């Protein structure tokens, strides 16, 4: 499944950049994220509870900044597992716009869902994913524009 979009954030570019590459900060905006553990500069772990329709599962996710080109481009790879389900994702983000903001974020994600979640939730995945993505950006905007 591929998702992409563009978000406008009324904040200076370096502030947006600092926010999105800080697992502790950006992690607070992931729906269902229960904990974040920074392993090293480019690796971190998260646990997140995800519900699709009538099923839910707690995923343990390993994430890695595969590319980190300050101050405007990052690629994150993620591999997560829950009992009977797995997710593998690659997300790309590019920032643009005046240094003082507003900042434009172009993003895309390729998500491969496998197992129970994909099988039993198939009809609902896209809607749920779009909702979760919307929540994430709403949260980021709220925190950055405050």
């Amino acid at each position, binding site marked *: 499944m591929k998702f992409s979009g563009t978000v406008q954030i009324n904040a200076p570019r370096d502030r947006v950049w600092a926010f999105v590459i800080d697992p502790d900060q950006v992690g607070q905006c992931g729906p269902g994220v229960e904990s974040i553990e920074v392993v090293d500069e480019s690796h971190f772990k998260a646990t997140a509870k995800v519900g699709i329709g009538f099923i839910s599962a707690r995923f343990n996710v390993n994430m890695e900044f595969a590319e980190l080109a300050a101050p405007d481009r990052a690629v994150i790879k993620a591999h997560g*597992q829950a*009992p*009977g*389900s*797995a997710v*593998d994702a690659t997300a790309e983000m590019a920032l643009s716009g005046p240094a003082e903001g507003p900042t434009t974020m172009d993003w895309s994600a390729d998500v*491969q*869902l*496998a*197992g*129970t*979640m*994909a*099988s*039993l939730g*198939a*009809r609902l995945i896209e809607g749920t994913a779009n909702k979760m993505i919307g929540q994430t950006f709403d949260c980021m905007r709220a925190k950055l524009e405050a």
Partner: protein
Amino acid sequence: MTTELQTTPEVGGMGHSVKRKEDPRFIRGKGEYIDDVNLPGQLWLDIARSPYAHARIKSIDSSEALKIPGVLAVITGKDLEGYKLHWMPTLAGDMQMVLPTDTVMYQSQEVAAVIATSRYAAADGVAAVMVDYEPLPVVVDPHKALEAGAPVLRPDRGEGKQTNHIWHWESGDKAAADAALANAEVRVAEDIYIPRIHVASIETCGCVADWDPVRQQLTLHMTSQAPHAIRTVVALVAAGAGLPIYEHNIRVKTHDIGGGFGGKVPVYPGYVLAVAASFLIGKPVKWIEDRSENLQADSFARDYHIHAELGATKDGKITGLKVKTIADHGYTDAAADPSKFPAGLFNVITGSYDFPDAFVEVDGVYTNKPPGGVAYRCSFRVTEAVHAIERMVDILAHEIGKDPAQLRMENFIKPEQFPYTTPTGWEYDSGDYGRALKLALDRIGYDDLRREQAEKRARGELMGIGISSFTEIVGAGPSHTFDILGLKMFDSCEIRVHPTGKVLARIGVQTQGQGHETTFAQIIAEELGFPVADIKIEYGDTDTAPYGLGTYASRSTPVAGAATAVAARKIRDKARKIAAHLLEASEDDLEWTNGKFSVKGSPDKVKTIQEIAFAAYTNHPQGMEAGLEAVDYYDPPNLTFPFGSYICVVDIDKGTGEVKVRRFVAVDDCGNIINPMIVDGQIHGGLTMGLAPALYEAITYDENGNNLAGTFMDYLLPTAVETPAWELDKTITPSPHHPIGAKGVGESATVGAPPAIANAVVDALWHLGVRNIDIPITPQKVWAILHEKGVS
């Protein structure tokens, strides 16, 4: 049409609608299904399954699972490898993983088994088993599986077999069929896909394996359509693993079964794991699948990609048929087909029609899916064959502008041509196809419907009429040709008549809803005159029942039913000797009528079968063995060929694309009928199970190999709301070679119904340029077509 009844309603022999003897316990909730079996000290087994359709297992960490209170053990493929139990043979002679040691091959494949003291603890344990996977490229499309460079899914198969191609099978005369098609005045070709479907029986699979280490006895309570074959397979697998579990110490017991339909023929890893766990721990171990496991991991049916070409003269006389098929078997060939028939009896695809030349070829292919190829209420790929030929005949009729009923009538094999040898080598036993179709046409008022259709079409309304005149092939089978894993496909019955004139009969076939406790008693009542009420039928316990190959592919009545009649006749032969002794008459002077022997010319000199039974134990002739028992292992001389003609009327909603089955007339001919009520019930159920794949059911996979129909929300079983009022009728054309002239009926309707419905839908849309719609014909598919054609 009625058959002349030979017995009174009180006796209840052939042709009486005797109420089912099994129903009192079912309607009172007193049936005993596998999940009702609970043994003292029983443990629970649950299975951790793969999220990936193809992945390498890097590691399995059981430590967290083992910390959960009640979890006793976690079994992995590496553990089983030590006992050589990580792979097991399939019924088709391929190999299947019990648990993987390094690679998983389909989403929801078994990866580890958790043994615990309760079902809940076992489930918690499953959730805590951590498996680290490395995803591998997934092969979902069987055509792509055959392309050069496709990942080889089964490297274990060794040198020379490093390909996803499993086998090639062909039947008929290729050169003759090529010539017939080349010379045909009219030639129609079509690609027809019969999607993967699931039997979705209401009871899922399960077992309680009970190894008694003191008595060295394994009792396996399980959901199986073929308990004796299971016993032998368990013994062979145990021998291969060097385990001291011998066939005389294995007892397979089936209890009541909540639907089989072919899905309970194979051996699933869960059964083997439960046996292994019970053997290792020395306690009973229970495994019960949940619904989603059943829908995602058990064997599937169909999944045939068919290309068919039909040749004919310009006025519609069929001259030849060529069929090329790709069969998607998933990651292993676990089909339960007879061993000489990897594509089942698919070459019955010449159907009800008389033409000289046909060639059929099928290639089996591996993909990253669970095993496919079980026969879902279908005698070994006959549903696929019937769907293809009935679609092709309809396309031909429409193509040349001839009425589809008329075209069928002109091409049918005529009654006087039986026994009829088809171009692919089957010898049809008997049939009168024209009579069945004529009756169906009359019952539905065909000419009026065609007039109505023309009027509606003029008004822009969409109405279609579809016909299916199918020939089934059931009753496998003669031992010279039919076996599964080398076991010949005979079947059996043992009858014991007790001194007081009551009867116990044990049969080699299983019942999973067919009503064998009633119908097999009726066969004995017919042959011996004992009332059905006095006859008890037992099955499904390998310690007591005679060896048989089980119930599937409509084989119970054709094979075990024949064994029952023959065993009863052996008893009647002995009864005649005893009667002659009691009546002091020559055997040749005795007449048998209505359960009695009488002396010719002296009708008052009579001995009833009950009196004879008593004498068999109290006053038998000197020199004769006491008792009144017989056993028969029946080896059928040929298969049987039930047939029928179905006509379906559909109306299509132009706004939504929804297909409504307005009427459906089903004329069946299954030879002589044992119990008309049960036959009607079989046909009602079968038609509904034919409606299901025609309009609703399909198992599909996404590009990553995830099963997209893992619950009943996505796998749509029709309910009473979707099901039309079936209109049934029948003709009776007995099988000439079967002892009671019966042919079997369990699967006719499932086989015959889908093309009638598909033909009706295409008939409604042909004038718009529609030639074929693959089943299931969902509203979305029809709506998209209407949208494309500018109809609204």
